[in-house]
């Protein structure tokens, strides 16, 4: 992990916070560090100590489904990559005997004299990110989790289906290690309950159950999988189609809360008793049951909150506000991720970035004062030198060494032309091998390095940094993947795998002979930002950037700031949106560094990351005035729109309203609920159907909000909410319960039997099939409120100007759903707010902050370095056909004229090195850095040169 290599991150493990004093910008924090009894600077991670350790304990990493030793490492790729002693189990620490590990350790890393120590650190800000944990499955007595080994939790099932898990990725049941035929998932285990567990919805369990079911079917297509659920809460981008996919691949979904699991002691099978929606009682037998457990706060949150002087909410998570979703009551202390409530991964990642930017706003004056850049020695010139290639072959523990004859491969490599040294190593990525590579490069005067190990995708940068530290240009490096391509795919053909490893190394050595040092082009960044869209997300992002000292243009299409937040008059949480909006608009308008331009639109965007030139049109009638803005990055936050349906008499009857119009009428007093009134709300209007196949995420909460408001004004007003699945995820579940307690009637309808609406005197008549009584319910309603879909804005001009990709739903697409949730596919353009997907207020705010965080990293650094893999064009060979420009997916090629002839020019900053241009070029004028035609041909030729 990169965090382990940053010179500016100090990782302190086995540690807890004991005391926080001081004020924002200037805290003193006391940390208690428990001993690991292993000197991390000496430990090489070889694992010999664990082989000798006689104490076997359940392995928490594999959810206790497998065993580990009392001295061990959490998982293979752990950072720091050092073993540690489990003090509860170690024989020496508890009974003063054994010390096998001390004798086994070759480097003398084990030190039982280590003591717990307290250290004090001086910091400007603190971010709490302590996460959540799975609820205890044993606490649900009627599910007999403790009695049956074949009832597993969601996390246990993750390990079961993992290739690195206890059964090597085979789906087996723990009691007899046999393949189960029938698996059931039981949703809401420990969630949405008043009896055994938590009242709130844990937000992620529906998603991961569907994921696990699909993964399991990919492993074993003949599995029979049933998911028992109350509501399937697949809100959020892409999940509704995911749900569809699960149904199509044969997963059975049964709407029922399972009350009991009976354990058959003879067969170890499990019997579920459940009542279907129509009231009929059923029994079914399964071989394996998965409980995707709800998530709960760590108990330690109480002491941590006390130490840090911050508050917890009623559920024991750290308390934040709707409009300040990352702030605590103590200035300078921020919270992010699962410690403030259950949430999916992208939200955690965005909150992390958001909290980072909060700290950055606070500490902007001290930015850069305590960090150091990694300094490198000057590069050694390799001109006129003979080839001196070093080959380093990795065992990867047993991962490669268990299949491939690594010593044989190493010896073979020594015989190849140009190779002067070849070694084999246990773990090439370990710190001691890095030191060895560095030393060998210097002592043997190597000028090319080949590493045969795992995948370059994860490890190439590590080795490149190492040879750079030894003075070699980082392009004088080749990596051979003998793990994925040899030991993994040919695990049972050891000889062939070894031969293939030799072939691959021979090819890499042939290529290495032709590689040359390449420079990393550096591009300066204009330290200004353009934010498109003056709604909640856009304003939040602009304020965050300006708060860190960066100048911003904020452009808004309409004549007024505020966007969709203007339609919100009250909130479920009780916080005042009008007050917040007005304060926000004032702050934006009065900030010296924010240049607000209303009634303006983007006409064209030229340039690339660091150097954008955007032409906007301004003026009341769009297009009278033009202005060119120069800026380094773009944040896209142009929001979303409300769908207007052509069903349920919308637009035909004045009693049929959109949900937000009802809200406005309630707030303004235009509608005063009467005890005689019936108000009907229909959910999923235009959502989760053929037209808009996604769930709009916010409509269930909005309906509950308006229902509760009406009940608050007049408890006697009748309210009916007609829904398909109620999805008030997270803590909003409590409001759903409140609404039911106050007499709001919830009736489920099926998409195949939509409610029927006819006009009557003074209102509309709504007929809906109630699946519980299996009869039509007829309601004469004064008002029918439609919870309609949130749909993407169509702005062809903007989309064309930016060439940012959109998802199938029509929202802007992020470059990685999980790990890069605010980066677009174009460098330097970030997305946030409802233009990315429909979301509630707090999520828009932290996403905007996350976008500002990613943008400010670039703006603060002031430059970007392009990878040397970019393409280059030989203008002598170029015939100017332009096919490369046409095919380039990143707009990185521009046709220009040189001496009146059309030639291709590479925009280095935009090029990703994908190679499309090079492969299409009919004149072979385009070559890729590190992958020239000459080098690839040498590799192919070497493949045919087998000497054995």
């Amino acid at each position, binding site marked *: 992990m990169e965090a382990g290599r940053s010179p500016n991150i100090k990782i302190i493990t086995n540690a807890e916070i004991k005391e926080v004093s001081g004020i924002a910008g200037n805290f003193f924090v006391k940390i208690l560090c428990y001993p690991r009894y292993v000197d991390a600077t000496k430990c090489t991670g070889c694992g010999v100590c664990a082989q000798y350790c006689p104490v076997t304990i359940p392995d928490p990493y594999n959810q206790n489904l497998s065993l580990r030793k009392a001295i061990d490492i959490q998982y293979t790729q752990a950072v720091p990559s050092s073993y540690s002693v489990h003090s509860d189990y170690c024989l020496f620490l508890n009974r003063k005997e054994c010390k096998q590990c001390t004798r086994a350790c070759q480097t003398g890393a084990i030190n039982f004299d280590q003591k717990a120590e307290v250290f004090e650190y001086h910091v400007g800000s603190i971010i709490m990110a302590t996460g959540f944990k799975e609820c205890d499955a044993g606490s649900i007595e009627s599910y007999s989790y403790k009695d049956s080994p074949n009832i597993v939790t969601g996390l246990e099932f993750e390990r079961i289906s993992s290739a690195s898990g206890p059964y090597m990725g085979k789906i087996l049941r723990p009691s007899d290690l046999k393949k189960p035929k029938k698996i059931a998932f039981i949703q809401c285990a420990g969630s949405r309950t008043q009896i055994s567990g938590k009242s709130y919805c844990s937000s992620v369990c529906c998603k991961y159950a569907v994921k696990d079911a699909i993964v399991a079917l990919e492993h074993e297509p003949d599995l029979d999988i049933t998911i028992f659920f109350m509501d399937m809460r697949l809100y959020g981008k892409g999940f509704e189609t995911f749900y569809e996919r699960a149904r199509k691949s044969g997963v059975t979904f049964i709407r029922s809360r399972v009350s009991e699991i009976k354990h058959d002691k003879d067969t170890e099978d499990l019997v579920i008793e459940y009542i279907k929606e129509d009231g009929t009682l059923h029994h079914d037998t399964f071989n394996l049951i998965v409980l995707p457990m709800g998530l709960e706060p760590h108990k330690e949150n109480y002491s941590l909150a006390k130490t840090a002087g911050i508050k917890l909410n009623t559920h024991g998570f750290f308390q934040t506000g709707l409009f300040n979703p990352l702030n605590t009551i103590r200035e300078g202390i921020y919270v992010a*991720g699962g410690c403030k409530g259950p949430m999916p991964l992208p939200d955690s990642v965005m909150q992390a970035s958001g909290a980072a930017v909060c700290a950055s706003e606070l500490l902007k004056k001290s930015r850069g004062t305590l960090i150091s850049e990694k300094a490198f020695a000057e590069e050694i010139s390799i001109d006129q030198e003979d080839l001196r290639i070093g080959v380093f072959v990795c065992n990867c523990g047993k991962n490669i060494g268990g299949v491939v004859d690594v010593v044989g491969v190493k010896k073979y490599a020594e015989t190849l032309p140009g190779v002067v040294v070849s070694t084999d190593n246990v773990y090439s990525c370990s710190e001691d091998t890095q030191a060895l590579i560095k030393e060998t490069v210097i002592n043997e005067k190597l000028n090319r390095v080949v590493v045969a190990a795992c995948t370059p995708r994860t490890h190439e940068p590590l080795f490149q940094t190492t040879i750079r530290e030894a003075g070699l240009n980082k392009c004088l490096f080749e990596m051979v993947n003998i793990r994925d391509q040899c030991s993994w795919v040919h695990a049972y053909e050891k000889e062939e795998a070894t031969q293939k490893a030799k072939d691959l190394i021979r090819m890499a050595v042939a290529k290495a002979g032709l590689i040359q040092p390449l420079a990393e082009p550096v591009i300066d960044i204009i330290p200004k930002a353009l934010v498109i869209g003056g709604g909640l997300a856009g304003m939040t992002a602009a304020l965050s950037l300006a708060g860190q000292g960066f100048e911003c243009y904020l452009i808004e299409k309409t004549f007024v700031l505020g966007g969709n937040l203007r339609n919100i008059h009250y909130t479920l949480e009780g916080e005042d949106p009008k007050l917040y909006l007005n304060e926000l608009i004032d702050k934006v308008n009065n900030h010296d560094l924010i240049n607000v331009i209303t009634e303006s639109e983007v006409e064209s965007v030229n340039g690339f990351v660091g150097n954008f030139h955007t032409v906007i049109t301004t003026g009341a009638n769009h297009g009278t005035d033009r202005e060119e803005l120069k800026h380094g990055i773009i944040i896209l936050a142009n929001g979303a729109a409300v769908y207007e349906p052509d069903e349920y008499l919308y637009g035909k009857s004045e009693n049929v309203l959109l949900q937000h119009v009802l809200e406005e009428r309630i707030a303004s007093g235009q509608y005063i609920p009467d005890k005689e009134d019936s108000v009907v709300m229909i959910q999923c209007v235009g959502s989760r159907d053929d037209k808009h196949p996604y769930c709009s995420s916010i409509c269930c909460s909005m309906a509950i909000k308006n229902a509760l408001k009406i009940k608050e004004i007049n408890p006697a007003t009748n309210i009916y909410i007609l829904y398909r699945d109620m999805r008030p995820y997270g803590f909003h579940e409590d409001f759903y319960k409140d609404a039911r307690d106050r007499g709001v009637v919830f009736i489920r309808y099926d998409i195949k039997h939509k409610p029927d609406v006819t006009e009557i005197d003074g209102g509309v008549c709504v007929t809906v099939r109630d699946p519980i009584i299996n009869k039509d319910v007829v309601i004469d309603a004064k008002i029918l409120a439609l919870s309609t879909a949130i749909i993407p804005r169509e702005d062809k001009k903007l989309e064309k100007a930016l060439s940012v990709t959109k998802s199938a739903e029509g929202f802007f697409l992020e470059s990685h759903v999980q790990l890069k949730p605010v980066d677009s596919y174009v460098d330097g353009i970030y997305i946030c707010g409802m233009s990315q997907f429909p979301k509630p207020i707090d999520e828009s705010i932290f996403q905007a902050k996350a976008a500002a965080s990613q943008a400010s990293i670039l703006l603060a650094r002031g430059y970007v370095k392009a990878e040397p893999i970019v393409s280059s064009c030989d203008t002598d060979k170029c015939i100017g056909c332009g096919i490369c420009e046409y095919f380039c997916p990143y707009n990185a090629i521009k046709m220009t004229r040189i001496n009146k002839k059309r030639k291709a020019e590479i925009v280095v900053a935009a090029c990703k090195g994908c190679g499309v241009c090079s492969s299409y070029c009919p004149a072979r004028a385009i070559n890729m850095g590190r992958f020239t035609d000459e080098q690839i041909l040498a590799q192919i030729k070497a493949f045919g040169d087998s000497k054995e």
Partner: protein
Amino acid sequence: MKNNNGHNKLIGAVMVVGGGITGIQAAMDLSEAGYYVYLVERSSAIGGIMAGLDKTFPTNDCAI
């Protein structure tokens, strides 16, 4: 480790408590943005819950 920067000055370092994906992401952002980070973790290695999730499904379809 105590810095003698006085009590009124802003300190250009941040402590991140928790070494799961959230803590790691916050630490990476801060260190890249120019702040020194202390990443404090209760267990013996960083990674948190995500390190234990099945990674055989690394496409964009991957759920949690």
